[in-house]
């Protein structure tokens, strides 16, 4: 029986730190960077006051933060780190090793633009640069989800069918520093939700060799196995999302409003709230991905089938690519499903560039017009610049 959930006023970052405390994490290793810093500060407060019985390892870089997490995780410990932007880029090498060694690490990413030019504000260029690193990628839109997803991330990562690292993404500042009432499970219920499952670990009595050298004969076998594990983790994520004790209805991996509108907007992160707000008013469909990797294709597709125009929001460029990251995914999905629905690929909100209600409203109006006139075409533009309708 779930006890009465407590409501606290917390920022997205505090909600994450609170979830880490409730998860009874053993090792925290992190390095400060805006806008992630307050997560690390909170956690050092919790560990030094004894609210969380964990080792806080104050590393000298993000590269070492993740390396500490890999080593710690392979002893069977529950570990946590958090970063943003340049820090994630510095971790890049170890991201692939963490997933390749099947270390169930949980990391929060307060998404922020990448240098140069240097900018501390939110966008998704950091995480999109790591999207092929083999991590499960969750996107929380608000502090409540930041708390919930962090707890669920441990349940997913440590599931014996998965054994992969999970990143919980929150938009820098707009979610990481946004204060809301957050309902928390509390330690006891959180730990009932997150039982410790035994797994192979570094222990003298049962020696194992971890991180060996693989020849071409064996390498592809391991990597294919790993890719399949990520793919099939989708079912585990859905299972965990559905059974989350704080919400009777659980969570969907893709959240959709106005499924039958001629225009469907698809995107990730906090900005989807703005679009949902408008979508409800203007009868525009809005699909928000809470899970980005593995890509929840089958869960998204039904809401794309009926649309006459699809608007894909990306908060990152993929310079030189046929389309930015999410638009590439959506176009691939449409093609695979035999659909030729036109796609407006819209890059927006780079480096914290404000996405105003008026900008979003204008975009949706134009999209509705285009859909009504049957004049949808594959175009791409940056939101706020002229919408170049052909």
């Amino acid at each position: 029986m779930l006890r009465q959930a407590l409501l606290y006023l917390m920022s997205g970052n505090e909600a994450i730190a609170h979830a880490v405390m409730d998860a009874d994490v053993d090792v925290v290793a992190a390095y400060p960077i805006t806008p992630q810093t307050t997560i690390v500060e909170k956690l050092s407060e919790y560990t030094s006051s004894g609210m969380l019985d964990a080792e806080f390892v104050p590393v000298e870089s993000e590269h070492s933060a993740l390396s500490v997490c890999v080593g710690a995780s392979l002893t069977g410990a529950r570990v946590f780190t958090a970063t943003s932007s340049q820090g994630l880029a510095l971790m890049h090498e170890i991201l692939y090793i963490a997933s390749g060694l099947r270390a169930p690490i949980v990391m929060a990413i307060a998404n922020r633009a990448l240098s140069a030019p240097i900018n501390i504000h939110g966008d998704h260029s950091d995480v999109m640069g790591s999207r092929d690193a083999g991590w499960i990628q969750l996107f929380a839109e608000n502090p409540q989800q930041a708390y919930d997803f962090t707890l669920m991330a441990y349940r997913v990562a440590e599931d014996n069918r998965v054994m992969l690292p999970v990143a919980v993404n929150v938009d820098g500042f707009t979610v990481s520093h946004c204060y809301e009432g957050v309902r928390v499970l509390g330690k006891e219920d959180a730990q009932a939700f997150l039982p410790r499952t035994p797994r192979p670990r570094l222990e003298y009595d049962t020696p194992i060799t971890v991180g060996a050298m693989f020849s071409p004969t064996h390498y592809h076998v391991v990597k294919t196995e790993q890719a399949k594990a990520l793919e099939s983790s989708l079912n585990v994520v859905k299972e965990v999302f559905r059974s989350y004790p704080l919400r009777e209805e659980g969570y969907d991996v893709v959240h959709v409003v106005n499924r039958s509108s001629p225009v469907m907007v698809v995107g990730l992160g906090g900005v989807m709230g703005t679009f949902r707000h408008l979508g409800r008013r203007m009868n525009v469909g809005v699909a928000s991905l809470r899970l980005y990797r593995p890509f929840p294709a089958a869960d998204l597709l039904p809401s794309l089938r009926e649309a006459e125009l699809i608007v894909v929001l990306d908060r990152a460029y993929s310079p030189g690519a046929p389309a930015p990251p999410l638009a590439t995914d959506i176009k691939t999905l449409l093609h695979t499903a035999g659909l030729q629905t036109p796609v407006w690929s819209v890059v927006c909100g780079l480096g914290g560039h404000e996405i105003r209600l008026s900008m979003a409203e204008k975009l949706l109006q134009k999209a509705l017009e285009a859909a009504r006139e049957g004049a949808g075409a594959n175009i791409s533009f940056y939101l706020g610049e002229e919408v170049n309708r052909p």
Partner: protein
Amino acid sequence: MITRLDQLPAKEAISPGHNACAGCGALIAVRQILLAAPRPLIVVNATGCLEVVTTPYPYTAWNVPWLHVAFENAAAAASGVEAALKVLERKGLGRRHNIIVFAGDGGTFDIGLQSLSGALERGHRLLFVCYDNEAYMNTGVQRSAATPPGAWSSTTPAGKQETKKDIMSIVVAHGVKYAATATPFFWKDLVNKVAKAFTFDGPTFLHVYAPCPRGWYTESDKTIQLSKLAVETRYFPLYEVENGRYKINYFVARPKPLEEFLKIQNRYRTLLRPENAELLQRLKQEVEERWKRLEALSQQREAPSSTHLVS
């Protein structure tokens, strides 16, 4: 004090049949170290020859738990292992182990220096062993900060012009409780230093001179002789620094001529040509200054009684 082979406390932890070159000094040193290291033990290995030659999947030469993460981060990965086992023991979910990190000179002097420094400063209880073969051997003998002046490498075709980085001083400057040098010929010195290192509660460091027949262009039966000559020429002094106090463990009163050590290594062939006399002189001067500095730091001038450590 271990003075006989049968006093070595531990069982063999590295099995024969690995892929190291015949006469690999690193593997000899590692075997000796593992025989002396207290149990329970976990080994963390940086990328490099040792990692590659011992773990060609599906085989492993390691009979102790072993972890390799990457090249530059062995000290950080080991920090994670140490921190985790501490808290797991507290929670009744695991137990503390003794931890040894093995890294090459590249993984210590160069790319691994930052994570090493971080681990030393944070004070994790682990022994960091640098097996120094004076170049990046795994990638085909490129120079490192440990390559000495005059030595050929594939990126110093005319002989290295710069000096060898003084890694011991850098480590000691972190205030570690114990740091020492060692080399396989002086095996009693080596194993006792390993045992001693684990008596300290915090990070300790061992700089092990490990001849590499492949990269030094020497015969594979010269490894142990080179290990001995390195010390007897004062090129690689055996010393330890305990709580800041320096002690020379093998006082070389009358050093052998450096050429005896150099001439059996073909990596010095160019250096020994008459036109390179100046560079050779610089190397000799570096060796002399290193020794003088140690004499001053240890306030030792004549052979102390500890020479019995020599085999």
